[in-house]
């Protein structure tokens, strides 16, 4: 003897079958027409994207939809910044969030596996016959949360800038901070950009944002002096007790002085 719920489900489905038989319309040609229109749109969009991708490429310069191909794979590279295909951006950013060694396995395997199990088992824990989304408050809230979090993670993943990408930002800085004509300043800015400061710090919007290191854009306004900066770079905790920043002494005095000068000169965008 089937339970009450099973019996109700079966009755509802029997009603559905009878309704479709009595009131329904034939799939061909009524529904299949809509399907075909939609399929046409899909194919048109695909061909359109391929055409835009190809014909906006100008003499090797990437077009509106990116380059035709990247550089050939180099397993020994030291300056390439790996990024996944766009639909894995959410996972990519999830991995950046789990920035503690103990939690790596949560981001890589734990959470994705858990979500996948929740997704695949959905029909077995959401068993009420109600189908209208507004009368399914839990499902409604869960759906909104999933859409928002996937959207945010994908967006953050797409826009994540790495410290070492900062070298490409130097001309922008030169313009904003007004030192574009000063060759020495540009060289020093490049040194600053390639020394990995921006793995943790932020400078004019570029750099690592999830380690909680102070922003350096207006470091010069603190007027700490070049000597303080050099000493701090050599041994951060001597100037800021308890600082988690590693020593940069290996760069050598000459480079450290340059970076300190650059920091002291950084007084925010000149606008």
């Amino acid at each position, binding site marked *: 003897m089937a339970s009450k719920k099973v019996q109700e489900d079966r009755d509802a489905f029997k009603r559905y079958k009878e309704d479709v038989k009595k009131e329904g319309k034939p799939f061909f040609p009524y529904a299949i027409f809509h399907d075909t229109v939609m399929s046409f749109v899909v194919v048109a969009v695909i061909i359109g994207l391929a055409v835009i991708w190809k014909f906006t490429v100008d003499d090797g310069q990437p077009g509106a939809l990116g380059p035709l191909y990247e550089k050939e794979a180099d397993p020994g590279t030291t300056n390439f910044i790996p990024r996944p295909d766009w639909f894995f951006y959410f996972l990519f950013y999830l991995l950046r969030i789990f920035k503690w060694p103990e939690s790596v396995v949560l981001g890589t395997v734990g959470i994705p596996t858990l979500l996948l199990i929740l997704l695949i088992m959905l029909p077995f824990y959401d068993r009420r016959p109600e189908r209208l989304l507004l009368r399914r408050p839990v499902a409604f809230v869960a759906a909104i949360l999933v859409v928002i979090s996937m959207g945010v993670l994908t967006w953050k993943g797409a826009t994540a800038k790495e410290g070492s990408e900062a070298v490409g930002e130097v001309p922008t800085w030169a313009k904003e901070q007004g030192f574009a004509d000063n060759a020495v300043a540009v060289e020093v800015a490049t040194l600053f950009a390639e020394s990995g400061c921006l793995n943790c710090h932020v400078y004019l919007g570029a750099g690592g944002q999830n380690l909680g290191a102070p922003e350096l854009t207006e470091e010069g306004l603190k007027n700490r002096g070049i000597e303080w900066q050099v000493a701090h770079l050599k041994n951060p905790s001597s100037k800021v007790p308890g600082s988690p920043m*590693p020593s940069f002494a290996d760069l050598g005095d000459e480079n450290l002085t340059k970076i300190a000068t650059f920091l002291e000169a950084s007084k925010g965008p000149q606008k």
Partner: protein
Amino acid sequence: MSDGTDNHDQAPGSSLWPIGFAIGIACILVGLVISWPAAVLGAAVTIVFGVLWIRDAARSHAPVDSAPAHALVDGTPSEAQLAAEEQHLETYGRAGFLTLATIGLGGVIGAGVVLPSLGFAVLPSFTGEGIETNPVDLGPISNFPEGTFVITSFTGSKRQGDVSRRTAYIRNNGLSAEKEPSFTIIYSRCVHLGCPIQPNGPAFKDQAKTYKDVTLTPVKPAGFGCPCHGGAYDTEGNRTAGPPVRSLDRYAFSVADGNLILGDHFSVGTVAGTAADAVMTRYPVAYPGVHVDGIERFLYPLPVPGAGA
């Protein structure tokens, strides 16, 4: 009653099949030691007697035997009924045998096709095939100025070519306390998820050298950073920030005829001390993201065969 005679004929035989089966098995075992034709013969004997045995077993499990007795005790079922029932039972018995045989044979066919293919698809990954242990010659030690890191890119395996291109950050530490040459050789893959780490400091591209297909670029890093998920390391490869689960992998080395020869690749937990005085435990190469020490190492209890030295 043909069925009855049939049963009678096979009754003594049924006790023989297991014996033949056992002889076949013995033949296989002896054949495996002595010569393979004997093993094949044994296998054939085993299969023949095995089939006969199964056939017999299937027959005896069907309620054929009880039917005549039943008929005798209960008196007088009509002859037609009896014949129909026997025919039915006979069919049932054969159906049981055929079902068993079909499933069994199907299983053998499936195993015969799937197992070798699956083995072929899976096993070569774990036999260590394709791992080359020829040492890589990185050129004269004089190319490695003391106290400076050199970005060294080399081809790990001549046979595989560019796909085995690797990079190591090599620092000549001078002579150790025991007057031995000392090098810090750090592998360029992040131990979070394997991205190519970058030196945090200026590279001197104008001082770059080459030796055969090895490129050597001096660099002055304050540490190393990973461009994927923000891992950061100091110049000994210890983690300073971000998600890396251990210190950067290293290579062993040797010196022959004044040339630096790359040795085994190994993983390390944490490095104590610096440069020539660095102390660390060597672990077999582990995948990035895999803990080699601490409590988390129990998440990865089984060593992977063929994972390389």
